[in-house]
């Protein structure tokens, strides 16, 4: 690791990254999964972790609840996007992903950028009536090829110490 602090991305490049993250969230909210999958690199690694409540002085402990490559992601999407193959997402959940607090940095690779963002994702189900929030920080690795951006790695760190209303069936 270099001692230098990573250099923040600003200007037009920052706006491009912001636009990519907003668009990607909107595709998930609109359930345009095929268009969303196109934004993943072939070597995507998509992870969601939850935290264990620990003493403030003790080391943090988190555990994975999702850890997928492209094949696993496609399989999850094949399940939740096909009305015959899902109970959790048929009838459809209502979801809204609010993405904010974006910070982006250059990396040692000229075409790769890291981005952290805050995510507030609301989900409600017809069978449960009241909805709830997933709240998370996300660490992404983005790749730029010309004007195209792709997501190469995402780690979603949930702040929820207890997930509400059953198992997570949506992507964050």
């Amino acid at each position, binding site marked *: 690791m270099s001692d230098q602090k990573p250099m923040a991305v600003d200007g037009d490049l920052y706006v491009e990254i912001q636009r990519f993250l907003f668009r990607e969230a909107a595709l998930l909210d609109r359930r345009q999964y095929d268009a969303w999958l196109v934004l993943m690199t072939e070597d995507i690694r998509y992870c969601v972790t*939850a935290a264990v*409540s620990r*003493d403030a002085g003790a080391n943090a402990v988190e555990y994975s*609840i999702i850890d*997928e490559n492209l094949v696993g992601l496609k399989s*999850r999407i094949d399940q939740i996007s096909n009305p015959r193959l899902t109970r959790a997402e048929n009838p459809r959940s209502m979801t809204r992903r609010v993405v904010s607090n974006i910070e982006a940095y250059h990396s040692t690779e000229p075409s790769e950028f890291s981005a952290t963002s805050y995510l507030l994702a609301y989900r409600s189900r017809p069978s449960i009536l009241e909805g709830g929030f997933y709240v998370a920080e996300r660490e992404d690795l983005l790749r730029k090829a010309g004007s195209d951006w792709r997501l190469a790695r995402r780690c979603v760190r949930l702040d929820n110490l*207890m*997930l509400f209303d059953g*198992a*997570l069936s949506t992507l964050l």
Partner: protein
Amino acid sequence: MAARNSAPEGNDWVDVRRGLVSRDVFVSDEIFRLEMERIFDRTWVFLAHATEIPAAGDFVCRNLGSAPVIVVRDSDGAVHVLLNSCRHRGAKVCRPDSGNVRNFVCPFHGWTYERSGRLMTTTFDRHFPKDFDFSEHGLIRVPRIEVHKGLIFGSWNANVIPLSEYLGEIAWYIDPFLSRSPQGMEVLAPPHRWRAKSNWKVGALNFVGDSQHILTTHVGPLTLDPVRAARAGFATAAENSFQVVTDQGHGCTLTYLAPGLPEEAYQTHPHELEPLYKEVLQADQRQLLNRLRVIVGTIFPNLSFIETQVGPAQKAVIVRQWRPISGTEMEILSWVLAEKEASTDYKATVLRNGFHNFGAAGVFEQDDLELWASATYASNNAIAKQFPYSFHTALPYIDAPEKDHKWPGRAFKPADTEVAQLEFMRHWDRCMNSAA
């Protein structure tokens, strides 16, 4: 003070003869409170896996019935289970989920306890009456703790029967999944934890033997890779498969691969670990594992387990607890286990593939919980409660266990009936109607 709950005279919650169970049993908060008294404060309840607290001072915070408890390992290796509430004014003396402690210092006024629960100091010892007996004011200790193959159980009932007797014949079936190598199994990560708007027994029944939900609830993952690829022969397996019922309400369902598959399909367990099984398991128990596709079962009241195929010669063992919160809500805790001797790579694969299927974002779990919540919601009204749940497919089989079953317990064929579920409810009913 509120009167103790009592079961209504001649309640008809469970009618085994007619295969009916009242919907109240799955939604009522009054029945939930009575369950705490008559089941969870009386019997053995699972608390933690020994490998979650390997070192002196390691602890996890759990619940025994409705009471929060600390499960802590002492410097001599002993495990103590303590009510997590200060003897002074009740604050939790230990508030994280897990960690390591030298002793427990109450953050409210400073009463300090050893890991054994013994009261060391109140910090105002000089103001106490001369006859105050410190030894009488330690943290309340759970009177009975026993460990079976790494599973730590506790009971608030000092007179509960020994754990080995309580588990009885079901131990023969669960041991090949909890301890089948010289070093035994270990948990691979902290438990997944999530809440579900459903009664705890819905989970317990689902695991004790509900083969009928698999092809409808789980049509998604069964149709898609990677599960589809790993389940060749599943649909034609029923003739070799059976349910087991033992005393105390325990039960399990074993699903075997059908004959006639390519030989490699029968390699269900890892090649490199099988020689270790020979060192620990009886020949009959190894035969139990041979060609086994899935075992799923429940230890009464609320501990379940499943071993399922997650890849060629890869099995994930999942231990699962359904913690009651009310008549209509539970918390689920779920651990993934593997043999301690297994390679780091194998453990990582089993962990990842295990929680891909069963866990806080499991592809099986998400559809189960949606339907359990919908059943809970739709049953929790006066009109629906006039119409009990149906367990009718148990009836033609429940009095006809397999006559030539050579292993422990009573076996029932075929596997896709509701015998084990109705037997679970029969035992539940017995507990709930027993005043003593």
